[in-house]
């Protein structure tokens, strides 16, 4: 599986374990707080918080829980907030299908991933069956 690694120049802001539903709410609030501190406007704060909420839910419901890393770093000369979700769950077999827009068409797998992708500035994902899934999103505007 392709590794998604953190750049050494990034600063680790917080590590959030994601084991219970309450962890989801807590991690969401942490992300919103960092987004606010990063100077993002209210709409962008809402965008990133909503995007990670989708990811956290997936981790909890399909990935068996996992860990969330919140980092900050410079991406393309921008001050970016970087959130990485790592689970060691069953993995996603068909990534293309998971990235199909499901809301309107009723297809897709309802993971909310394509929607989350639209809300962020960069979206990276790797997954391997029986090994787990890692999804990283970045936002800077």
């Amino acid at each position, binding site marked *: 599986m392709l590794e998604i690694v953190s750049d050494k120049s990034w600063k680790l802001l917080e590590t959030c374990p994601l084991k219970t*539903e309450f962890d989801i709410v807590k991690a*969401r609030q942490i992300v*919103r707080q960092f987004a606010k501190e990063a100077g993002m406007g209210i709409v962008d704060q809402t965008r990133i918080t909503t995007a990670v*909420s989708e990811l956290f*839910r997936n981790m909890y419901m399909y990935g068996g829980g996992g860990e969330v890393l919140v980092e900050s770093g410079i991406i393309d000369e921008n001050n970016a907030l970087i959130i990485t979700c790592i689970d060691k769950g069953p993995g996603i077999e068909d990534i293309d299908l998971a990235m199909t827009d499901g809301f309107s068409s009723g297809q897709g797998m309802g993971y909310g991933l394509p*929607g*989350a992708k639209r809300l962020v500035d960069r979206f990276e994902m790797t997954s391997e069956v029986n090994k787990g899934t890692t999804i990283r999103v970045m936002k800077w505007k």
Partner: protein
Amino acid sequence: MNYNEKKIPIIKIRDYLIVSIQVDMHDRLALQLQTQILDEIYRTGAKGVLIDISTLEMVDSFIGRVLSGMASKASIMDAAVVIVGMQPSVAITLVELGLEMPGVDTALNMELGMEMLEKRISKD
């Protein structure tokens, strides 16, 4: 685990139920709320439900689906659901998420929401 740690209060005024969501809900709480509201509609025979989300800073796909689901289930029970006070950033994010919640009535504030319900009920 205590599933009922936080119960969101539901108030009845005339023929309507009024629910004000002020907490960041986890999924289970949202589903619990849906059940609560539908139970109350059944119990009181309310014709309308006003759900105030003016302090909700985020509505993601799950919460969005719960709200839509609530509206369609309530209409089967002959009650209308109006979502009131959505924040602009929430609206923008929902549109970008691709979740447009068709079939869900919305109003800018409580007053307009009640007018909407009144018009609908007086039509029956």
